[in-house]
């Protein structure tokens, strides 16, 4: 993957770099999705981070939870009706005890839905090439552009340096 990036110690400097790149994106011929920020921890309160805050994860988890509950209801009812046992006058499909299974499968549905949504929305698993630098794990914030146009490289480098980067790196 070809990329041009810089590392910042300070999240404010990283924010300046992201802002500068976004402002100049049109004139440099790069799209917003080419601007990459990589951090070793979540940075709440910064625009480069909070722009992704909205997600339908809660909604999906609720939906999969309801789905799990319905599966639980079907499973218990189907089993008890298909293989009836002597119950001594008690109901063949007892709502009190079945509620326990319905409850557990509701929660399991919500949990499974959450994890699957996370994997899909975070693009995991993804074993292809991605922009990263070991320095990120030492507290640096990586701001870069993937597949930058050749003619825009000097201008991009200037923006990254002006935001406070001491060094700009490139990957072939």
């Amino acid at each position: 993957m070809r990329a041009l990036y810089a590392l910042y110690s300070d999240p404010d400097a990283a924010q300046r770099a992201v802002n500068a790149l976004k402002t100049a994106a049109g004139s440099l011929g790069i799209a917003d999705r080419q601007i990459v920020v990589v951090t070793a921890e979540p940075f709440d309160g910064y625009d480069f981070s909070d722009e992704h805050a909205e997600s339908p994860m809660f909604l999906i988890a609720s939906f999969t939870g309801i789905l799990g509950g319905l599966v639980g209801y079907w499973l218990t009812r189907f089993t008890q009706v298909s293989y009836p046992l002597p119950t001594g006058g008690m109901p063949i499909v007892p709502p009190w005890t079945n509620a326990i299974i319905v409850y557990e499968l509701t929660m399991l549905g919500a949990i499974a839905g959450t994890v699957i949504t996370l994997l899909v929305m975070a693009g995991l698993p993804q074993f292809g090439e991605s922009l990263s630098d070991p320095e990120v794990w030492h507290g640096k914030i990586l701001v870069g552009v993937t597949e930058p146009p050749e003619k825009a490289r000097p201008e991009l480098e200037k923006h990254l340096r002006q935001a406070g980067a001491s060094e700009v790196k490139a990957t072939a």
Partner: protein
Amino acid sequence: MEKTSEQIRADLLRPLFSTGPGYWTAVAIAASMVLAGVFAFCYQVYNGIGVWGLNSPVFWAFDITNFVFWIGISHAGTLISAILRLCNAGWRRPVTRCAEAITVFALSIGAIVPICHLGRPWLFYWMVPYPSERHIWPNFRSPLAWDFIAISTYLTGSTLFLFLPIIPDCAAARDLTRGWRRKLYSLLSLGWQGTPRQWHRLETAMHIMAIAIIPVAVSVHTIVSWDFAMTPVPMWHSTIFGPYFVVGAIFSGVAALILAMALLRKFLRLDEYLQPIHFDHLGKLLLTMSLLWVYFTFAERLTTWYGNDPSEMAVFWSSIRQQFAPLFWTMVVCNFIIPFPFLAIKKLRTITGTVIASTTIVAGMWIERFLIIVPSLEHKYLPYSWGTYRPTWVEITLMVAGFGMMALLYLLFSKLVPMISMWELEAGVRKAPAVPRHVVSLKPRPATGIAESEPFATDLSR
């Protein structure tokens, strides 16, 4: 002086690479305990379940005691971690992973015990509802089927709850290591990059999981209590059993967590991260649970005594002043008399104090599980059916193997994954200046100058 991001990562990744002889000695001891258990299990499978001390009227004893005990221990982790996450308690950061790992391992061990109890354990999959030629599907009216579903749900949820925050740490290990470790962590990190979008999704997912896992955790031990409460056996058929078991589970779980943290602190040299203040906070929680446990125990016994039902009184007196009295009073001493001063008096609520209290509580809670089960079964309604129970070497060996397996899994896990979540800790360090001064003491820093008796030592130089 505060630790830098680089120092934190170096400290927390160090146990993955450097291993002393003490570690391998501990692994060897734990592995030999497990091997002894494997031998006992094979002996039992070959000779039949008659090699256990079970006989009419006691058909459940050590095995179900161990089952309830380990399911209880499992409540330390995911439940506490989820509550602290939702409360946004800053001090949780070094504690959560140690706790969540306890849940997964204790739950797995607990789930193995009923399988050992099956006459033909290799047919345990008959509990799984799937269409088959046998036309035998689980009886969902049975508490044992509830157990299966509840424990499966909790184990799945807890494993995912443990695994999700590990992904970014595996990504760090992937980028900072070479050779086979790099390959292993590449696989475990699932290609994690660390983009803002990924962080947001992970944090949202953890939040939802925390909300979902708390009611599951409560339901699991309630359902375990219903294994007993749904049965008309003296002193079992009680509405108090659900909350009583949940309180007991959290009680024993927090004690186990304190013990695990103390061992990690000592053997992985994490004393700069697992500080006296963490033991102090958990000690307060343990004190609350100890008082709740005394309250429930007293309420249960008082109601029985006041009702004066002959069949229940037979069980009551057997545990208070007859053959089980030594165990009963040992339990009271272990769960309340010894821990109370160590946890209630601030000067005694040190690391050493909380560890002493936790050790006695873990022992006391095992005895409590035993006393719930065996005296009731020995004294059912008709005196002609009364009997006694003595455990055999097979049951004792399997119990010891459970503790060995817990230790072994924990040791191996600590070699594979940082026992403290690096990214959560760093995020906490970064946010700490924005929080009130008294919370600054939660930030990791060199241990020099911090006395163990100063749980609220504060960096006043700030």
